[in-house]
């Protein structure tokens, strides 16, 4: 394989996506109106846990404009049951019917669907469906749900504890118990919602003439959906096309297969008319996968000089009512115990987890999966240890980071960090902050009675995961490969199609940059198409910080393969040895006589001109598909540092500075990378200070609107200072590392540590997010009363 030499890769190229999005010409699902289209509305359970004792759609079916009303039992005759399988031991597989059958397990679960001539009429008709529920006792707390006497959600599983697992290395109990310094705490992440600005939605259209089913969906994973739907609907896969054109945010929450997608596909085949469903915000907050809801009891042991000896932790994850396809309920819990050992040398470790079903929306992947809470826990313990040891928080971290000469480093859970810039990121972060001056300022401000603090968080994460490790443990689907399809037209323009499917990450621009460099054509000659299974080679989609690594690597392989063929044709045309030729900016030239050139468009034209014009035995045409599997994947790392002040009147946390120093390997487009980091931090700030999905004890959702679920506005946020250490990954093609999730991983930990620092004179240590003013007020009051 030829070395990859970046030219336009690394440049701040303005995004190609933007013109259509800025002028109102985006093509989101809801913007499509095929002729004859019907609208769907779902009847949703008001009960958290209940038996459906009566469900009679007759009255609704007779209403004017209503075309069909379908219940779970009827739908079950048309689609196979959805089961999120995993080979993981200690995992109990459960069903997740697209429309409830006999029983509902969370508020908002779909019970029936109305299909009508307009959404207004469909919603009217919902009120005419006769439905009766016999309420069952609800469980809305994982601890309670795990008790033997708790009401069981899935009878066939026999218990609400649907999974458990342990990762261990060494003898952690002995190591921690013998440690000179021990710090322990119970940490908690409350339930979180992704809140994409575009709600979920889909449009299914079955063409009886061609037997083709087209699903347009606000999804991150068109390829994954196509595979799954072919099986569930028992249809030939080549008759299913899934399209995710413009998608309004995803953040993990649009990466799973959803009941509404299955329902619409099944019903459109029966009705032979297109059907659209667009979630409203309330439905989105009730039914889109939610994140976190975890409790971690963790203890860290260190030697007197600050060297870490071991970490032990027990984690309980509230996985909600259903195991989501394909990731299963293991996705967050297992990644939590996988990543908990963090960026530090960790001789002894044990992480144990159990995932418990409750009457809440299903838990699913969300930006950072597992890593936001593990960073929060471990970095929280590091600060507690620093205070106990009377050591500087940054120095304690520097002492314990995995060092440059220790890579590749195998973690206690078996992951391999290929390389990371932990020390460099911290040093740069301290420099940007001007740490010592800031510490002086902190002393002064505190002398004035102000509550100010500095908080660090370092993380390391696995990105661009290849086939060595499934994205979710024991999953029956493969997530380790992606492909690029490149076609050169006779005019020399290039179409590049990928199965990755962005929701704002700028793939059309970034991947065009990679193709342009790998093939040697000018950027304007490359057009990238993502998110359409009819055009792309097989793949799954965009999730788990994989697109730059997997699709970027595939683009390099495909571009280099095409270039090789193009230069052979050019050599034939120029009567030169292809080995003496190169191509840049769509111009072929002789390396040692650069004035001898041939436009690429002439080569492209010749490629299609037939055997008479081509080298002997060469197949005509100029297109190629190449797959890429990075196998282990590659590490990304960063240090975040923030300065906060807690308002002594309102107890609001005001962030004064927020600095990120990260290493995501070779940067394809700094504009996009900085945007991803800033956006990720913004979501982390939201999580740290404002956002919480709240269910009451009966499993009723109390945050069903954006009045109740608080997403930060421009007024709550500040400019995020982003700096890079750019170390090309030693293990991936192009040296790219994934970076879409990092901002969200570091922010809750850094902010919590800064608030703990600000209130350290009171002995307050933050162990739960969101850090709301009322919680801080209570903590301060308790601390003052205890004095």
């Amino acid at each position, binding site marked *: 394989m030829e070395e990859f030499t970046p030219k336009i890769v690394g440049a701040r190229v303005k995004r190609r996506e933007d013109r259509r999005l*800025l*002028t109102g010409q985006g093509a989101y699902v809801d913007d499509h109106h095929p002729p004859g289209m019907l609208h769907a509305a779902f009847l949703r359970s008001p009960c958290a846990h209940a038996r459906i004792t009566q469900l009679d759609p007759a009255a609704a079916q007779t209403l004017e404009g209503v075309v069909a009303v379908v219940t779970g039992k009827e739908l079950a005759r048309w689609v196979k049951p959805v089961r999120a399988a995993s080979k993981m031991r200690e995992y109990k597989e459960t069903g997740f019917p697209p429309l409830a059958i006999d029983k509902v397990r969370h508020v908002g679960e779909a019970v029936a669907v109305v299909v009508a001539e307009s959404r207004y009429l469909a919603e009217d008709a919902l009120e005419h469906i006769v439905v009766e529920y016999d309420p069952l006792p609800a469980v809305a707390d994982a601890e309670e749900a795990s008790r033997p006497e708790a009401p069981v959600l899935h009878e066939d599983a026999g218990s609400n504890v649907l999974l458990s697992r342990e990762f261990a290395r060494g003898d952690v109990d002995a190591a921690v118990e013998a440690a000179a310094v021990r710090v322990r705490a119970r940490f908690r992440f409350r339930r979180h919602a992704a809140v994409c600005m575009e709600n979920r939605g889909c449009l299914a259209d079955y063409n009886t003439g061609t037997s083709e089913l087209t699903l347009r969906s606000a999804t991150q994973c068109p390829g994954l959906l196509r595979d799954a739907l072919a099986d569930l609907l028992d249809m030939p896969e080549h008759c299913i096309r899934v399209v995710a054109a413009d*998608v309004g945010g995803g953040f993990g929450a649009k990466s799973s297969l959803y009941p509404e997608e299955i329902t619409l596909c099944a019903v459109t085949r029966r009705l032979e008319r297109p059907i659209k469903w667009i979630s*409203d915000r309330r439905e989105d907050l009730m039914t889109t996968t939610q994140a976190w809801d975890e409790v971690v009891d963790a203890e860290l042991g260190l030697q007197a000089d600050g060297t870490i000896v071991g970490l032990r932790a027990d984690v309980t994850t509230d996985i909600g009512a259903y195991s989501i396809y394909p990731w299963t309920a293991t996705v967050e819990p297992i990644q939590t115990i996988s990543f908990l050992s963090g960026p530090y040398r960790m001789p002894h470790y044990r992480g144990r987890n159990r995932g418990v079903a409750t009457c809440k929306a299903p838990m699913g992947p969300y930006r950072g999966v597992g890593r936001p809470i593990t960073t929060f826990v471990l970095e929280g313990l590091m600060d507690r240890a620093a205070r106990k040891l009377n050591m500087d928080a940054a120095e304690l971290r520097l002492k314990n980071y995995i060092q440059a000469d220790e890579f590749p480093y195998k973690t206690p859970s078996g992951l391999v960090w290929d390389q990371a810039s932990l020390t460099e990121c911290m040093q740069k972060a301290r420099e940007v902050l001007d740490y010592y001056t800031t510490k002086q300022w902190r002393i002064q401000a505190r002398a004035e009675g102000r509550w100010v603090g500095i908080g660090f968080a370092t993380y390391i994460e696995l990105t661009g995961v290849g086939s060595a490790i499934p994205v979710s443990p024991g999953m029956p689907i493969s997530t380790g490969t992606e492909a690029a399809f490149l076609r050169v037209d006779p005019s020399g323009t290039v179409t590049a199609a990928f199965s990755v499917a962005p929701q704002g990450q700028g793939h059309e621009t970034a991947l065009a940059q990679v193709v342009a460099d790998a093939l040697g054509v000018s950027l304007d000659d490359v057009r990238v198409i993502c998110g359409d299974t009819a055009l792309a080679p097989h793949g799954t989609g965009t999730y788990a910080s994989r697109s730059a690594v997997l699709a970027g690597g595939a683009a390099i392989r495909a571009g280099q393969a095409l270039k090789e063929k193009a230069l052979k044709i050019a050599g034939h045309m120029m009567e030169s040895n292809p080995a003496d030729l190169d191509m840049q900016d769509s111009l072929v030239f002789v390396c040692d006589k650069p004035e001898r050139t041939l436009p690429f468009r002439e080569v492209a034209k010749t490629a299609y001109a037939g055997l008479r014009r081509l080298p002997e035995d060469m197949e005509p045409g100029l297109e190629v598909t190449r797959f890429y599997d990075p196998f282990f994947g590659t590490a990304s790392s960063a240090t975040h540092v923030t300065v906060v002040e807690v308002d002594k009147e309102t107890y609001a946390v005001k962030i004064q500075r927020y600095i990120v120093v990260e290493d995501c390997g070779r940067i394809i487009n700094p504009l996009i990378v900085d945007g991803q980091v800033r*956006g990720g931090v913004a979501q982390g700030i939201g999580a740290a200070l404002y956002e919480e999905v709240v269910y009451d004890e009966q499993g009723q959702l109390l945050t069903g609107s954006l009045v109740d679920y608080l997403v930060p506005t421009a007024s709550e946020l500040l400019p995020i200072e982003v700096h890079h250490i750019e170390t090309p990954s030693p293990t991936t093609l192009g040296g790219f590392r994934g970076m879409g999730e990092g901002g969200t991983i570091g922010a809750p930990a850094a902010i919590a540590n800064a608030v703990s620092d600000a209130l350290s004179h009171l002995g307050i240590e933050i162990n739960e997010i969101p850090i709301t003013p009322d919680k801080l007020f209570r903590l301060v009051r308790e601390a003052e009363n205890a004095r």
Partner: protein
Amino acid sequence: MSERRQITLTINGTVHSGQVEPRKLLVDFLREDLGLTGSHVGCEHGICGACTILVNGESARSCLMLAVQANGAELMTVEGLAEDGKLHPLQAAFWEHHGLQCGFCTPGMLMAAYDLLQTNPTPSEEEIRAGVSAVLCRCTGYQGIVQAIQAAAEKLRARGDGR
């Protein structure tokens, strides 16, 4: 189904007429009846601001208005910002400063910014943040948006034109 009403309104300088049910939301009328799909529906309860348009020169949530309430009104939507294929300075600045990622909030954000600069051509950073705080963006952290509005304000001032 209730009786339809005839409405006539001007959108981006063009007169449109239609028959609508009294309960039909203005944003649904724009999107479904007129095919102006630039204005997006993000919450239908007036919080997210993706549907923000100008009604008689002032910003309004088109998800909180009925189409019949806009009868006789003059509306401006994101489709009316560019002139003859030339991007408005706000659009150009959003592009330059990476003021959008997924693009779903962008039409509402642009209209809120347009409204802000109409009333305050020289906003401070804090005023910009407050001015667009009625539109939620989940992707950008608002930094590119704030920079873009600052840049557009300068450009518009240099052009000597509030529009």
